[in-house]
């Protein structure tokens, strides 16, 4: 199930691909970053909608030239304590001007939801077996912020 920054949920139509052996490309797949790097031309040619996922140690700078041909970038939390995705989301949007969807996948926890949205993440893939109600609540938990949100928006922020 997906969650957005308004605390709304939606069915997740995407499939995260980890093993590319014998893969038949399809628009609803989220492809591994390494696979994208080697098969760019074919992927761009075959798909109408390109989605890839990055692990927290992947080099986001190397992606900057390709961003206009990518529709969705998913940032993986190998474990919730690995907070690189917060900065990666910021850089994607603020430094590289990525206009597509940014998604958090893997193992984030509900209490990180609002932080993620404020760093520029558009959707979170709620980990299976977790109660979506808690995520919905946490998505809009705070309405007072000492920082501006992604894109420098000042709504509800002190400055």
């Amino acid at each position, binding site marked *: 199930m997906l969650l957005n920054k308004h605390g709304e949920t939606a069915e997740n139509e995407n499939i995260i691909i980890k093993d590319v052996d014998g893969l038949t490309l399809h628009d609803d797949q989220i492809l591994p970053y390494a696979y994208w790097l080697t098969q760019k031309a074919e992927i761009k040619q075959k798909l109408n909608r390109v989605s890839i996922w990055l692990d*927290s140690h992947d080099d986001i700078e190397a992606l900057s030239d390709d961003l206009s041909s990518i529709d969705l970038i998913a940032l993986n939390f190998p474990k*919730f*304590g*690995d*907070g*690189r995705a*917060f*900065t*990666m989301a*910021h*850089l994607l949007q*603020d*430094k590289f001007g990525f206009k597509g969807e940014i998604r958090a996948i893997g193992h984030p*926890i509900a*209490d*990180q939801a*609002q*932080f*993620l949205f*404020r*760093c520029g993440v558009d959707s979170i893939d709620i980990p299976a077996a977790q*109660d979506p109600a*808690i995520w919905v*609540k*946490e998505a809009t*938990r*705070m*309405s*007072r*912020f*000492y*920082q*501006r*949100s992604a894109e*420098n928006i000042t709504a509800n922020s*002190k*400055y």
Partner: protein
Amino acid sequence: MSLQQSIQQAAQKEYSPTAPAIAPKNVQMYKYDQFDDEFITQRIDQLRSQINRRLAGELSEDEFKPLRLQNGVYLQLHAYMLRLAIPYGQLNSTQMRALAYIARKYDKGFGHFTTRQNIQYNWPALSDIPEILEDLQKVEMHAIQTSGNCIRNTTSDPFAGAAADELTDPRPWCEIIRQWSTLHPEFAFLPRKFKIAVNAAEQDRAAILYHDVALQIIENDQGEMGFKVYVGGGQGRTPVIAKLVREFLEPQYLLSYLDAILRTYNMLGRRDNLYKARIKITVNETGVEEFSRLVELEWNRIKDTGFNLPEEQKQTIFKHFELPEFELHQYDAEKFESKKLKNNGFDYFVKNNTFAHKQDGYTIVSISLKPHGGIPGDISADQMDLVAQLADDYSLSEIRATHRQNLVLPHVKLDDLFILWQKLTKAKLAAGNIGLLTDIIACPGLDYCALANARSIPIAQMIAEHFDDMKKLNDLGDITLNISGCINACAHHHVANIGILGVDKKGEESYQVTLGGSSRSDADIGKIVGPGFSGDEIVGAIETITNVYLAGRTNNDETFLAYYRRAGQTPFKEALYNVA
């Protein structure tokens, strides 16, 4: 008894259930506005729901841990521990009374001031914590980010805004950093904890070079104020002195520059090894030139488009810290001197526990929380109430906590000093040992802490009992002695002139001694002098070390550290281990 009732009773005011907890008048500190108050309410609601989810088993201890930690809740040997934030060490008297109330109601009548200018309670029940935080909110305090892998409480000079030797008041800058770092969405899950310290005085009383980021406020050749920025200091297992990354940062860029440092660290910091995750390791492994190049690169990208506090809002924060109205008065110097002559204790107190104030006729008074044989940093609820009362009567209702685990009354009239000393004496708070050998920093050690390998507090008590002659202590003069109960170095043993580290050696406590450390602007890391000592031997070893110094110094003006830097370890080794 409610918090308000308790505060009003302690302040000897008539209790009125509708009156707000009495805010002391005209205290020069940041005061919450409606935004800040609503923010705290929401944060407490969140923690309450997290605690309920944990108690209901919906959150694993693993998942709960970073959440409780970011709200100051630790799980210790015997119980949960709660660490409250005292932003840059500043308190008003009402807040001190609230701390006393919490100590009585939720703890065993004590609080413990830490080396981070914070206070800890060792015995709260987990289920009481939201209620404690609601009480704190009423006096404009919280426990946010006093732990966890996030930006911690910003620390500073405990004499800020009062010291004669400061260039400017660092507190408004600390407050700007506090607000910027509070629940910063990008930096709540860093590789490791992150500590920022600011100093604007000539003397460094905040050990800033042992912080992840150290900001020294300076004036450039054109007379403009700015920050000298150091990165990558720290203690723990690997003590490192912070390295200079920028000679002069224009103040309007403070927040974008901090964003650039934190962002660079968040991406580069190691996440494969807890003990190599601090920024000091990142800087060492990346190289300071390369690290600062990356920071500058990111900063140049965001310095004009990213967030910097607008001037108008900066001014609003600065207004909170405008200097109080000092009373112009001529103090009676003759009377003062005669009181010193008649009272040895008062003489020592004036000599060691006061510091030059920027206003004539005033002084800064340190209250030692290292009484003879006491527990360093510990204070009873009754003593807290008394300190609050003394602050109201003699220090414009202001109190500070220091990184050496003492308290400060920052604005005391010299004419009031004698009566203040008498009242402190009655409450056993008049130890005149600030900056002397028995002004010991000690961690909780094996008596409380889940990480410790050895006892710290009892060793501190044994040393204080052995060195109980004020004349001798004053003769030894300026010496720092810190005791950590494990290699995590919470008591900063590496940076003490005499450092003691308790380790576990085949099931026995062993105390390793380091010499020559300093946490001031002449920062240095102490070196191990030789094999460790048992708990029974350590006091004798310290006695030997001090005797070597007394015998070897050229004159009384040569401090212990100066002597050590001249003579090296050899005379100490010879005396301690009988080697020729």
